[in-house]
């Protein structure tokens, strides 16, 4: 790559500017990567708490529905599930963490009162209500987990991108630019040395000519 550059002073100045800019970009990107990792660590702690809560809620919900199935039968549980009229909704808003847009998910109509569940109070048992309650709580945990895990995915993608950019600058672009600069420096020094040598040769030749002319003049005057 370095051999493709024309070894001129103008190109040398351009390369030096690019090195300066790339080094500043590299430092900024490194700071961004470190900042993102710090933010990510906070979210990771939160995510582990949310995850363990979610798994706990899932186990509880499973126990409740298994109990309802065992006591009331599959048909009664499925019938109650089919009778529901109101369904949970989520609204996604966004938040910015170090340039990464992460979602903030809000849920509505997850927790419902008995009369909003659609099945009659008399026709079903308390076990089905308990299972429905447990699953409503599980849904709330799922919404929270979705928010945190989406934020994690987005931050990880940004960390990966930033890391790739830092590596590209550190291991590809900057070494190439330094190699180019070194090549131009060497060539310019070489040119300078050649020029000095040429000047010296011209000077020696000129001095030899002057000496010869002086000698010729001296010989002429002696002869006369």
């Amino acid at each position, binding site marked *: 790559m370095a051999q493709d550059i024309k070894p001129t002073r103008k190109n040398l100045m351009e390369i030096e500017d690019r090195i300066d800019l790339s080094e500043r970009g590299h430092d900024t990107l490194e700071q961004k990567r470190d900042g993102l990792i710090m933010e990510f660590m906070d979210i990771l702690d939160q*995510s582990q708490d949310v995850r363990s809560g979610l*798994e706990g809620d899932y186990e509880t919900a499973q126990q409740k529905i298994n109990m309802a199935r065992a006591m009331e039968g599959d048909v009664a549980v499925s019938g109650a599930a089919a009778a529901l009229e109101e369904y949970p909704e989520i609204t996604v808003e966004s938040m910015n963490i170090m340039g990464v847009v992460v979602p903030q998910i809000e849920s509505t109509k997850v927790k419902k009162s008995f009369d909003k569940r659609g099945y009659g109070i008399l026709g079903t048992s308390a076990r*089905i209500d308990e299972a*429905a309650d447990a*699953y409503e709580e599980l*849904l709330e945990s799922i919404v929270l987990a979705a928010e945190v*895990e989406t934020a994690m995915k987005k931050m990880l993608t940004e960390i990966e991108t930033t890391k790739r950019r830092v590596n590209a600058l550190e291991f590809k672009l900057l070494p190439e630019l330094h190699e180019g600069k070194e090549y131009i420096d060497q060539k310019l020094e070489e040119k300078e040395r050649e020029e000095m040598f040429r000047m010296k040769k011209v000077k020696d030749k000129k001095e030899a000519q002057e000496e010869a002319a002086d000698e010729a003049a001296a010989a002429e005057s002696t002869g006369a």
Partner: protein
Amino acid sequence: MSQEIAVIGSPAFTTGFQLAGVRKVENVADDEKDDDLDAAVEAVLADEDVGIAVMHDDDLAHLSRGVRQSVEASVEPTFVTIGGGASGASGLRDQIKRAIGIDLMDDDDDASAADTEAGD
């Protein structure tokens, strides 16, 4: 714009969510998961009204490689897998290893393995 929650899995898995009001449900019987689960997941991925999709962690093993990768990378809808323990989805764990360079979710497993060894 408001979106909904979808659940994909066997009828035994989805019924509870239906009790909580979830109406977008893709039922796939256990013995048909190898053939039909991919299509069910793709249908949910294509549904713009779905904001969160819920699956059982074990069901990921029935998905083809491409669909599984889509599930792990998908942000809209976000896939939440449950039943896989406190470490969460394996895709996220791999992504953490790739991006940060260390397995940050390793602590719990190591601690529990150490406890088991100490118990033995």
